């Protein structure tokens, strides 16, 4: 029994049951398939998280975001008057996370590429784009740069899904996707 020492002292020479060998082989091959699916997706899939990241001071990131907001704000929205920014397609766009808001609101054109920069001013936050359900961790001191192609005209929520203190549930931002001009 499993609670007694093996009854044959030389247990490692016992022949294996055929069904066990077959299962181990199948399981091993399945592991290889799953491993190479991830590798394969880097070459053929369209959803891979960028490896481009930099260390950055929160103040520097805030300055760059403010520069974009100053240049491209088209209107304000929400109770707190969040700026809505419409940067040109192909450009660098910034969204900063801080207690407890995503700033600013972005207005992007459908089917165009944008270089989205994400970073936090204080604690960790979670960029959770809904209802697409794209979720990316946002750290203070790190700037992640990814290329994003919005699909589907409409309003998208940006929920914070990394717990960030008592106001965590108020932290909602927005991305508008509009028709390309």
């Amino acid at each position, binding site marked *: *029994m*499993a*609670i*007694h*020492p*093996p*009854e044959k*002292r030389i*247990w490692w020479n016992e*022949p*294996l*049951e*055929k*069904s*066990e060998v077959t299962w181990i082989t199948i*399981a091993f091959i*399945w*592991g290889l398939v*799953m491993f190479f*699916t*991830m590798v394969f997706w880097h070459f053929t*899939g*369209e*959803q*891979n*998280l*960028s490896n481009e990241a930099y260390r950055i001071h929160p103040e520097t990131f805030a300055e760059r975001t403010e520069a974009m907001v100053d240049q491209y704000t088209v209107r304000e*929205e*929400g*109770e*707190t008057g*969040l700026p809505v920014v419409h940067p040109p397609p192909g450009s660098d766009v910034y969204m900063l996370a801080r207690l407890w808001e995503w700033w600013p609101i972005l207005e992007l054109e459908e089917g165009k590429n944008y270089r989205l920069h*994400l970073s936090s001013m*204080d604690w*960790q936050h*979670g960029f959770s*784009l*809904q*209802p*697409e*359900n794209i*979720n*990316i961790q946002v*750290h*203070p*001191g*790190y*700037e*992640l740069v*990814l290329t994003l192609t919005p*699909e589907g005209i409409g309003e998208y929520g940006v*929920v*914070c*899904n*990394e*717990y960030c203190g*008592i106001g965590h*549930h108020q932290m*909602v931002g*927005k991305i508008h996707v509009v028709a390309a001009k």
Partner: protein
Amino acid sequence: MASIAHTGTLPRAAEFRTCPDTGLKVDLAAEKLIRWNAVVAVVFLAIGGFFGLLVALTRWPAVHLLPAEWFYLALTAHGADVLLFWIIFFEIAILYFASAILLSCRLATPRLAWLGFWLMLAGALLANVAVLQGESSVMFTSYVPMQAAPHFYLGLILFAVGTLVAVAVFFGTLVIAKDEGTYEGSVPLVTFGAIAAAIIAVFTITSGAIILIPTFLWSVGLISHIDPVIYKVVWWGMGHSSQQINVCAHVAVWYAIAAMVLGAKPLSEKVSRFAFLMYILFLQIAAAHHLLVEPGISSEWKIFNTSYALYLAVLGSLIHGLSVPGAIEAAQRRRGYTKGVFEWLRKAPWGNPAFAGMFLSLVMFGFIGGISGVVLGSEQINLIMHNTMYVPGHFHGTVVAGTTLAFMAITYLVVPLVFRREIMFKKLAQWQPYVFGLGVAGISLFMMGAGTLGVSRRHWDITFSDAPVAFDYPGTAFLMMGLNGVFGVLAALGGLMYVVVVVGSVFFGERRTEEKARAEPLLPQGGAEAVASYGSEGTLKLPGTITLVTIFFVAFVLYYFVNWKFLSEVWPLS
């Protein structure tokens, strides 16, 4: 046996009793430590489970029980009390059982073992005090730069040191057993599994020390900055690896229950031990599961680590997934349940809560926790699941349906064998694994459902009523969270049944005297002999297990690729 020249103090003169059920020599000091560790474990399960119920009732949108600050406090306490304190106290009991009792050996240095116990208890209490004071609602993970009160980290450090002492006592006991020749040949498979758990525990606790000690110094102002990404890499070296201790421990418990209830013998010692070896070699690198969408970590690192090299640790679990039910089927067939494919399963002792809990744990760990874990841990698929309710859905399938249910199941053997008390409320005990199992299955599945609809974990208000801009999750997501609440209540009921049965039996149960043990043996008589001699090639037919494993594999493959399909439908990003 080699003669050893003893220097210094002589070995302790241990007192033993002979177990009337198993014939094992039981060191009374070890027995006492097992009892105390198990009792404290159950107390923390009760506390942590209560906080879990509060969390479930708050996330049930129609109930929304607690205010925000209490919700985050309860969630922090829930994680620490059940994931750390309940499970690790119980695991220490298992380590002492698998070493001193199964090897009929005296426990090494019981005094040190008590020191470990008190350190763990002091640490666990200190961390609880810190959380209840309200200044440490940082979640179980305590991601920097969010800061808890210094005694929160100090509590965790004390707990970790105590655990390390206990693990050292376990290794010491193995050395003594070998030295004094208390067993013949190799250690039993269950002990082997416990050794795997203990080796991983050393790695885990070291990771915890490496990150929690600087974090404590940072919280008292002696260190100015802790890098948040490095914190996560090292913290999860503790946080995820400790889950692998659980896997080793509960797989060892599966084998132990199958052996004790049915006299089941491993199909092949070689294969089962090899599977545990895969855990030791590859499980630790799973810190990557929590870093798949972090900045500053390369995809190569992520893929290699998240897959445990080439899914070699998953291979270990898949092997146990065949060899545990296979051992049960073989034992049952030897007793004459040979009709059809599934007579062995139909005629299994479903009224015995130890067996029922063990088998439910096995099935749910595989189908719910295991499959979802591999999918969630695929580098790119993680993008559509990270930090959603899918994550707690997954780990309630592993840690609650898997580990907790397995530990509950073996309690029904521990109480009569180690506490020497009869189980009280037999009917309640019979139903307990089913009520708890159904509740946990519901929690896991509905949380995963809510997660695929985007619902955030660790979130007080998914209606965002106080937010400056509006956003609504789909109606189905609210339904899922409501159902999660309903099944959370059911799981809490199952947990309460367990606590009532265990506390009642341990303190008020009828004493199980030697006469009574001989009159009503707990373990099958002759079962061990009936299955004592197989394992060689060609003697064994296991159509039932093969069918179960095939169903599992097909479900696994389909679910895996469905999720790649889901991923392919979201916005392109690179």
